[in-house]
């Protein structure tokens, strides 16, 4: 390995969220020291994921199958759709095992200040899904930030004549708290005590 290759590795690692140049150097060194047990398997896992992971065209989840394993799971309740901002939020809710319905990933929240509008989110497909015969309840699990709440209000407005009940996760989600950061207990309680809007 030439210095250039190590530099390249560090440079790429430093683009990962939460890693600055210093921690990237540490990570690179750790990988190189554990070449057989970590670096090579990691490379293979990355290649396989890059090759096979796709976005579910129904819900926006990430999986090697499309539609994803959740969308095609016959044991899941297809009458309920839980709307989340990001895949990480879906994972957080799945960890709690408190929800047995389907998901819809918005891809963010409405945010004029960040230049994110309705067309940048998967709102049209959400509304189309909500109009489907089987769906009776849409559960909004956007974050408790100002933008998250504004987005929830907007979706509720747009779903007015879709013939579904719209509910939101109950209190217990602190303002500014993103779903992904909540502990499992809080999250499943918030799901159980969800209330209609």
């Amino acid at each position: 390995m030439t210095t250039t290759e190590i530099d390249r590795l560090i440079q790429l690692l430093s683009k990962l969220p939460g890693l600055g140049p210093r921690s990237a150097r540490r990570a690179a060194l750790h990988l190189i020291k554990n070449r057989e047990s970590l670096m090579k398997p990691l490379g293979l896992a990355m290649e396989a994921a890059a090759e096979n992971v796709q976005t579910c065209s129904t819900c926006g989840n990430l999986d090697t199958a499309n539609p994803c394993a959740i969308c095609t799971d016959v044991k899941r309740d297809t009458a309920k759709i839980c709307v989340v901002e990001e895949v990480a939020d879906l994972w957080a809710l799945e960890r709690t095992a408190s929800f047995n319905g389907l998901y819809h990933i918005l891809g963010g929240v409405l945010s004029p200040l960040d230049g994110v509008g309705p067309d940048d989110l998967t709102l049209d497909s959400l509304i189309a899904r909500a109009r489907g015969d089987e769906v009776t309840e849409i559960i909004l699990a956007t974050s408790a930030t100002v933008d998250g709440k504004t987005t929830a209000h907007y979706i509720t407005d747009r779903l007015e004549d879709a013939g579904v009940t719209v509910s939101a996760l109950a209190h217990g989600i602190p303002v500014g708290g993103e779903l992904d950061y909540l502990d499992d207990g809080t999250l499943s309680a918030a799901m159980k005590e969800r209330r209609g809007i």
Partner: protein
Amino acid sequence: MNEISSSGAGVFFREDLTTGEVPVVTAIPHQLAVSRLTLTDFRCYRQQRLEVDVRPVVLTGPNGAGKTNLLEALSFLVPGRGLRRAKLSEITRRAADGVVAARQWAVAAKLSVGDNEIDIGTGCEIGANDNDRGRDKRVTKIDGTVVKSQAELGRYTSAQWLTPQMDRLFLEGASGRRRFVDQLIYGLDPEHAGPVAAYDHSLRSRNKLLREGNLEPQWLDSIEESMARHGIALVVRRLEVVARLQAVCRAGKGAFPGSEIAMAGQVEDWLASEPALTVEDRFRDALLTSRPSDAVIGSTSVGPHRSDFAVRHGDTGMAADICSTGEQKALLIGIVLAAARLQTEERGYTPLLLLDEITAHLDKARRVSLFELILDLGAQAWITGTEDEIFAPLGEQVQHFAINQGEFEKL
């Protein structure tokens, strides 16, 4: 002889006059005080530590010595953007040629309220990684644990400040006065920061959409809903706190005049005659109706961001902006000290007072009275000035440091 040095109610340290030993300093139970402050790459400070006791701190030195920077650092121990309202990236230390010399800054402090100690650390990493969502990321730790939001600081600490820029507070736009009154309120009601930030966020969102000509009704509905909810909540809080503060402000104290204070504005007028929920509807309607005209001017013409904090001289009844410069400053000091007294009553401890060049525009009588009031209150005040002599009469009642080029020297 062991004498208790006293200044009115502010009995808070003992002085051993015979042995000349360092005074034994004990905190009064209701005083928020810094005991150690550590600055890293903050403005002119590369790495500086200052250890102090609970007495007021006097900092003297030439202009540009780093006095205001030190007060600014202390102002980061409470929620908000500090007393200069600077961008996080502006605060990092710069080399002599103005080039940014660090990629982060930090303020760490040990504070006490009576026997309870708390460690606070806050700082910022400047764009460590372009892909990180936070960009310039402010991190706040309380007792070593990272907290989700710096707003949590408000549960433990509070500070009030006066800076030379605020000398023109009554002459300039209403936004400065709203910030001033909100800063007073944060000390009395830390939860006030929530609706203030939420309203401001939604207001800027609405203005941006209107300026871009984006008039999608449902999107604006959602934003205006947020403005109505948070906007009315924040005006209600302002009215409540200003009414409590008015009771304390009305009577003058020492050489400082009393004042008549009030919030004034459209929403305040509505709330005078209608319940909050009705006013929320009224405000939402007003926003809806004003969309076309607001789109033309590119800003929002109605709402609490148009309110003003109105102050009149308690003795003369004159509006503050037509009082003399000296009288305006006296009114401001009177209000800040009243807020500090009210907070001590309501929350059980005194705030930190950060008083930058406070003695400018004050005659000797008012200077002496200000020092007496601070000592009476028992607050740990941080007072800066250029001349040592002004503070000489305070003797051992304060701890005095000289600052020069970012270095401290205990006098």
